[in-house]
């Protein structure tokens, strides 16, 4: 009992730590990557001075995130005269909390057996094992979408309760856009569910450590390349980032639905957006890139094509899985930032037309083809 409590407290601490670190680091990555892509020097002004010396630690501008945080905490907490102070106060939390909760069902490692990892704890833990995931639920993917849908309400509440026409327009745009792309997002994932036959995310990851066609790892991105592309595009639109950032288009709507928010309340919206980048990266990794496993890897070691087996010690497997997951997520985050600084912004009617007349039919076509293929394969095997 107490052992479970300790292990899950560690898991939850790890998850929150990882997400907060990603949120903080991504603000810096976004600036630095933009600078590199547009051939500028970029974020390089904030520094820490070692006390009583003249040594300034610039570290490629890594401390800009801390400067941002300080500024948000210390700025004036402006409150507009609104007709619903309650909705105004609660909106940033409604936008922020579900984003964190989504991570609860994402597996960030294989199986943890504390007794095998730290022999000193063997007596206390016995032969208990834990999947490295905060909540292993059979409804995994459904929970992701359930919480994903709640963030829409946060955005709409914020825009509505600010007593500002720009905010209201931003909220309208955010609402329509997120509803449209959530539909596409759900449809693209259905093909994967057909292939794997489950919505349990840990099960999906385990099925991806096999081999298809004799040499390719059975990753979702090889089985459903089309769905992977659509998923990424819809996810970026769901997160309201360029090229889909119409709800907060600066030249038209100031800052959209969070125009009237200042200080740390605005910080929550920004933080939610940056953490959602990491969440999208984690979801994409779990569904399409083999999750926490390296290619051909499972909980006991590597099984290369041709039946070549390399067994690994348990501790090495745990460390490799944790690191692999973080590296994959970081690469996917970097890819999203790459997209942000490469593409120009859509017009608003184009955003909605893109969702309903281009991506939705494509997602449906992908689903139909997948269903027929899965049915044929079953018929052949039977």
């Amino acid at each position: 009992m107490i052992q479970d409590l300790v292990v899950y407290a560690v898991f939850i601490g790890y998850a929150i730590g990882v997400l907060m670190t990603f949120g903080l680091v991504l603000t810096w990555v976004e600036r630095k990557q933009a600078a590199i892509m547009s051939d500028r020097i970029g974020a390089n002004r904030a520094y820490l001075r070692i006390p009583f010396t003249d040594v300034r630690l610039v570290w490629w501008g890594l401390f800009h995130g801390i400067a941002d945080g300080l500024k948000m905490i210390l700025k004036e907490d402006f409150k507009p005269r609104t007709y619903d102070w309650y909705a105004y106060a609660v909106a940033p939390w409604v936008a922020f909390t579900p984003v964190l909760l989504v991570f609860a069902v994402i597996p960030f490692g294989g199986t943890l057996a504390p007794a095998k990892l730290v022999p000193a704890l063997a007596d206390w833990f016995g032969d208990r094992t834990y999947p490295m995931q905060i909540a292993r639920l059979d409804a995994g993917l459904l929970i992701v979408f359930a919480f994903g849908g709640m963030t829409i309400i946060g955005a709409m509440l914020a825009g509505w309760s600010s007593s500002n026409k720009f905010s209201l327009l931003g909220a309208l745009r955010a609402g329509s856009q997120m509803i449209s792309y959530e539909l596409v997002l759900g449809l693209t994932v259905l093909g994967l569910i057909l292939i794997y036959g489950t919505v349990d995310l840990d099960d999906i990851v385990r099925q991806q450590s096999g081999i298809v066609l004799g040499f390719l790892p059975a990753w979702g991105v090889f089985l459903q390349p089309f769905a992977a592309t659509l998923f990424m595009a819809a996810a970026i639109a769901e997160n309201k980032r360029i090229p889909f950032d119409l709800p907060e288009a600066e030249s038209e709507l100031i800052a959209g639905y969070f125009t009237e928010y200042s200080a740390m309340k605005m910080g929550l919206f920004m933080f939610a957006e940056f953490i959602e980048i990491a969440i999208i990266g984690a979801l994409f990794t779990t569904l399409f890139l083999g999750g926490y496993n390296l290619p051909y890897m499972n909980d006991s070691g590597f099984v290369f094509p041709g039946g070549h087996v390399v067994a690994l010690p348990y501790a090495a497997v745990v460390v490799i899985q944790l690191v692999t997951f973080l590296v994959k997520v970081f690469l996917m985050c970097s890819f999203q930032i790459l997209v942000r600084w490469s593409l120009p912004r859509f017009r608003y009617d184009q955003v909605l037309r893109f969702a309903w007349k281009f991506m939705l039919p494509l997602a449906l076509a992908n689903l139909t083809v997948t269903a027929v293929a899965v049915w044929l394969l079953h018929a052949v095997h039977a």
Partner: protein
Amino acid sequence: MIERLLANLDTLLLYLFAACAFVSAALMIVLAQPMRVALALISTMVFLGGIYGLLGVHFIAAFQVLIYVGAVMVFMVYAIMLLDVRDPAYQRRYSRYLVPGILAGVAFFAALAWGLAREFADVAEGGPAAGGAFGIQQFAAAFLNEYWLHFELTSVLLVAAVVAALAVINVSRRDRG
């Protein structure tokens, strides 16, 4: 101490969620502002989802939040967002149907209590009890084998409702010229 707390954690959380769901449901009836009513309804749905999760049917909890909050309430909030907040109708907390409403509510609760009492008697005698784990696999099999016709009929009904809504909008547009 902690061991005992952990052993009874499910029951404690169940009471907590039930109390929160009850309070937000009551608030939903009493509040006057449409957006606050919507927020109270959302929190009722979320707490009900929590209760389903505690009962071990996680997918029902997910559906509860996904469908009622993620779909139904999102559209309601979207519509409420476009209402005029200075509408004088919000000033009055109760409509003129207050007394008939309370009477109907009392009658409804009486019927509910009577039905529940009978159910409890059944359960005490060893009547219909939850048998085994009801996972998403069993749900999917039952859904697609036994209830697919009901589901398809619902979708036909929804399409009819959409057509009706479009017709109503067109009629009111034509009236305005």
